[in-house]
């Protein structure tokens, strides 16, 4: 079972598919070493209306073929995860790199990104944690376009409706006001033209 191969699990959490020395295909050498300190928890959602959980960084931008050492600190009292998806499967079983930290714990893991420009999904895969704020993106090189619903980066793909509860009345009033304004403007402009 591949789960058992490249994995550390202890009372603080776990790291799956850590890789600090095998180069992805197409990489001649490690281009650069990054060290990221990522924190997670409710505190990092405080500035985002409608979010419950968050991360200190929702977007990381790195060079192709670089090596990332991520130190993930969980400021809550429940589990959180820092997972990257879409990595090459020949190197990362399931295409993922996964750090999981228990409440209050810190876990560190290292992995190497491939050489092509691509934007990877970065999230917490506990039920509803991504949906309630823990979604980010890892941009390698120039990336391949922003993902949806990344805090501070992109809009929600399916946005809730925030119109007032009695929105029919509001919409009707809005439409009447708009139509009246449009008519008024047209009449005004037409009468000016006639005068000139």
């Amino acid at each position, binding site marked *: *079972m591949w*789960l*058992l191969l490249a*994995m550390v*699990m*202890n*009372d603080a959490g*776990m790291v*799956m598919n850590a890789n600090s020395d095998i180069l992805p295909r197409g990489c001649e050498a490690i281009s650069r070493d990054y060290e990221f300190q990522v924190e997670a*928890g*409710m505190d990092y959602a405080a500035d985002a*209306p*409608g979010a*419950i*959980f968050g991360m200190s960084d929702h977007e990381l931008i790195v060079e192709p073929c670089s090596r990332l050492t991520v130190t993930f600190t969980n400021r*809550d*009292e*429940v*589990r959180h*995860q820092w*997972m990257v*998806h879409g990595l090459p499967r020949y190197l990362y079983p*399931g*295409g*993922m790199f*996964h750090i*999981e930290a*228990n*409440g209050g714990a810190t876990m560190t893991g290292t992995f190497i990104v491939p050489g092509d420009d691509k934007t990877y999904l970065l999230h917490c*895969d*506990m*039920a*509803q*944690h*991504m*949906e*309630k704020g823990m979604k980010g993106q890892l941009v390698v090189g120039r990336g391949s376009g922003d993902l*949806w*619903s990344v805090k501070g980066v992109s809009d*929600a*793909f*399916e*946005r*809730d409706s925030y119109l007032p509860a009695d929105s029919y009345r509001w919409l009707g009033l809005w439409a009447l006001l708009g139509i009246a304004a449009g008519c008024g403007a047209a009449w005004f402009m037409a009468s000016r033209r006639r005068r000139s």
Partner: protein
Amino acid sequence: MMIRPRSSLVLWLLAIALLLLAWPPQWYPYALRVQLTQWFGASSYRALPESRTPGQLQSEAFCPDENRDWREAQVIDGVSIAAARPCVADNPYTIAASVRGTNNVGHHTLMRSGLTPDAVVKGRDLDGDGDPDEIHIRLEVAELNGSSAESRDPVTQYAIAPGIKPGLWVFAPKLAGMARENFESVWARSDLRLPSPAIRVEQGDRVTVTLENSHYMPHTLHLHGADHGFVTVDGQGNDGVPLTSELPVMPGMARSYELTPRQPGTMYYHCHVQPHVHVMMGLQGLFVIEENRPDNWLQTLNVGAGQVRVPAVAVREQYDQEYDLHYLDLDQQLGERIQQHSDPRLITRSMHREYDITDSSQDYFTLNGRSFPYTFRESLVVAGEDERIKLRVVNGGAKGIALHTHGHKFVVTHADGNGIPSPAQFARDVVWLATSQRAELDLRTGNDGLHAYSPGIWLFHDHQNRGTTNDGIGPGGNISAIVYEQYLDEEGWPRTQGVSLEPYFSEAYYRKEVPVWQSYAPDLFSDPGRDDWLLLRLLVLAVALGLLLGLSIRAVSGRR
């Protein structure tokens, strides 16, 4: 251009003739039809539309292929696990880790159990009788079939029956890793499910249950019926009731509840925050306190309830098998609210202010988190002859259940955890369970004419008949069966002698698209075809009416 009067008259006559011809005879006034019949007799024979040829149903396999080896009797880390005969069984590694404690099993067992190292920690043997008495359980809260800002499909999906995915909240064992099976999958992993796990501890154990609230709403843990102090040793609220004992556990936070239960019995645990919503979303589970016995290594978690594959010593003294049966009804209009919004502020408004439980009705009826036909995969009670089987039942639903067994009369030995004196114990085939009530049933198998009539496949279900449907479509709901071994095939499927169960494994059946007797009487009871002749007539009628209208307008405007 003017129309000449004569051609106009022809058109008028034509339109009126068309109108009369096309007018469906059924639409004539009744008295006129009677009069016409007296003059001309009945209309000529016209066959009713043919029965529609049934389309090919997309049916799932009765028994999924995965993890067949989980069904076998096996020994893992020294824990002897009984066989599970239905085709879907619980993960035996989770069972082994629940018995030994996640702190006491080997790495391999822990990895395959899916649990974290601190999910079920078993400590010292305080009374020196050979089993651990310090038990620390950690529970998380998970949402199934919730919403996402990414797509319109529910996320972390869990089906209670083919195609039926109501929004749910559950207490879950503390699981390591992702909530889904894998990154490509939309499905929740097999141990993240309804119902919340049944918890088992021993009388006199020092139990700590830590609620790690991994959900986005406030929750608590209330130990219904289990002996616990109002406050913990350090003065923290211990009853889980936000009104009286403590503030709720906020998202991302944890709280420990403590108890040293003095009385054994079948109890219950649930969230007590806005309970009319949270309990009905699924935040509830069985809490069983077993009698103290030497060397009593308990299966602390029974994920998904169902068969207890490592029964307690006191249960084994009297019974051959033990099952946990958790009944829960669901209101579709409640569950869907977590699917309609993504923003927790909108969700909480919808659930806690707009939803009105006093106007609610129940649509789905689950036994151990599934409805028929999925109950036949995993919730069968499989029996040999002359067995005594202990059934621990809780009704967590909003409405009572009238639990009925075919072919058997059981004896209720305990109600709400307390033993019923033997003069009051009698054999019966319906027991009423009000909301949150528990009963312990003594089920005897065989053929004595009173407790059991003969080997076979005998249903058991809520006899209030809505409970045997999925949103009004039967068979569904909490139907399961007592199946004697000789009536079970190799895969664990009952050898039925009735109709094919295949239609029930299609989503279309529960979308109300399949005639209920179509599988064996397609000519008699399929949907009839369309009456194309009537449609054509109506089209001609419409043309005639249009013609008349046009002619009228022309006549009026021509006069002007």
